[in-house]
């Protein structure tokens, strides 16, 4: 049929009757072209088509869903409350920090003065609470989030930066890269297994957004590494802490985001 030739409305009516009677069959291109041109037929078609999807879910689909689910029904232990999960995550965090620090010299603790110690400890512990809550929210679908994931990570990074700038003095860098690289490498090496531990814990729930989950897990692993470095590093000056210790947090978060993104694109769809 040549383009632009109008098909008679009655012919289209007949075809629509035929097509809608046998759902799933096909509409000819001519009829489709006519629909584009004729207001009356388009309205009729829209009306019929709107009725079509609004129809109830087919019995077969529903039956299949019920059969599949009933076949695998087993009792499950319920996930704990958000506060309890967050508390568990914080305890795990503290246990790992304590275990790692016990194997190292706590030189940082001796170098810091009291205001520095109180200030940085407050920032680090607030960060742990914030990230643990963020992770707990992500483990349960439909939980009400008070702060978005990205804001939690942002608040932590910003408060750490401001805290370091306000609390620690600027000193002329001494072997800035060599000593800094050592801290960065140690921090990242520590962050890898820690992120795996937290990933494993979080998978007990049903996390949905893997990219934001990866970022949060990376951030909490990075924060743990920063905490350990803070108490074990003898270089407590602003430049070193900002670039090399802060770098651990940034790189761990970025790596977590990347891994989460790859998993959401190419990994198994769910659990």
């Amino acid at each position: 049929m040549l383009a632009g030739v109008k098909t008679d409305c009655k012919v289209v009516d007949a075809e629509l009757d035929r097509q809608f009677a046998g759902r799933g069959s096909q509409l000819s291109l001519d009829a489709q072209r006519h629909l584009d041109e004729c207001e009356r037929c388009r309205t009729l078609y829209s009306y019929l088509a709107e009725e079509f999807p609004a129809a109830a879910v087919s019995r077969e689909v529903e039956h299949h869903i019920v059969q599949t689910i009933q076949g695998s029904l087993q009792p499950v232990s319920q996930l704990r409350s958000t506060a309890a999960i967050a508390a568990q995550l914080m305890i795990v965090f503290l246990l790992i920090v304590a275990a790692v620090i016990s194997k190292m010299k706590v030189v940082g603790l001796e170098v810091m003065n009291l205001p520095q110690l109180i200030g940085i400890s407050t920032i680090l512990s607030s960060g742990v609470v914030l990230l643990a809550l963020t992770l707990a929210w992500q483990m349960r679908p439909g939980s009400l989030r008070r702060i978005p994931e990205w804001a939690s990570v942002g608040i932590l990074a910003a408060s750490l930066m401001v805290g370091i700038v306000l609390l620690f003095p600027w000193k002329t860098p001494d072997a800035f890269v060599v000593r800094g690289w050592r801290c960065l490498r140690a921090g990242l090496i520590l962050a890898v297994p820690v992120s795996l531990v937290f990933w494993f814990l979080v998978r007990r729930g049903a996390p949905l957004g893997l990219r934001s989950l990866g970022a949060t897990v990376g951030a909490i692993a990075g924060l743990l590494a920063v905490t350990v470095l803070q108490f074990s590093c003898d270089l407590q000056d602003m430049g070193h802490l900002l670039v090399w210790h802060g770098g651990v947090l940034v790189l761990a978060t970025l790596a977590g985001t990347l891994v989460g993104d790859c998993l959401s694109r190419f990994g198994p769809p769910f659990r």
Partner: protein
Amino acid sequence: MVELIQRVSPGLWRYFLSSQISRSDVEDLLQDCWLRIHRSRHTYRPSDPLLPWIFAIARHTRLDGYRRRRRRESRETLVATPPEVIALGEHSAPATTGLVDMLERLPESQRDVVLMLKVSDMSMEEVARATSSTVGAIKQKAHRAYARLREMIEKEGT
């Protein structure tokens, strides 16, 4: 459980259908969604509202389905000229006019918010739960969506 499936499925069906996909894809998404709901049943707490929990899973089922379709389509190679017919029900875009058409022109996140608030009759807090967002963000999205719809209605009216 059967009653739950029967009561919630139509709402999920309409939700999946709003993303302009074929009937067979909607059926696949619906089954996939129920399977996910079943697998993550341990995360539901009876004290929490049910619909946001279900819709949060449904939202991600739809996202994963979209990614899967895009991956599949990117690997497909056209070996012949497509047939000159359009399958009925395989395309859910029958040149609809009015509000439905305008809703389709909204960004997905805003459309989701409007559909959940106005069609599924959920509260702001429930929508925030379902979309893994905050109440403030939902208010903002709803406000933007209404402004955009108002703009469209004014344009179409002139």
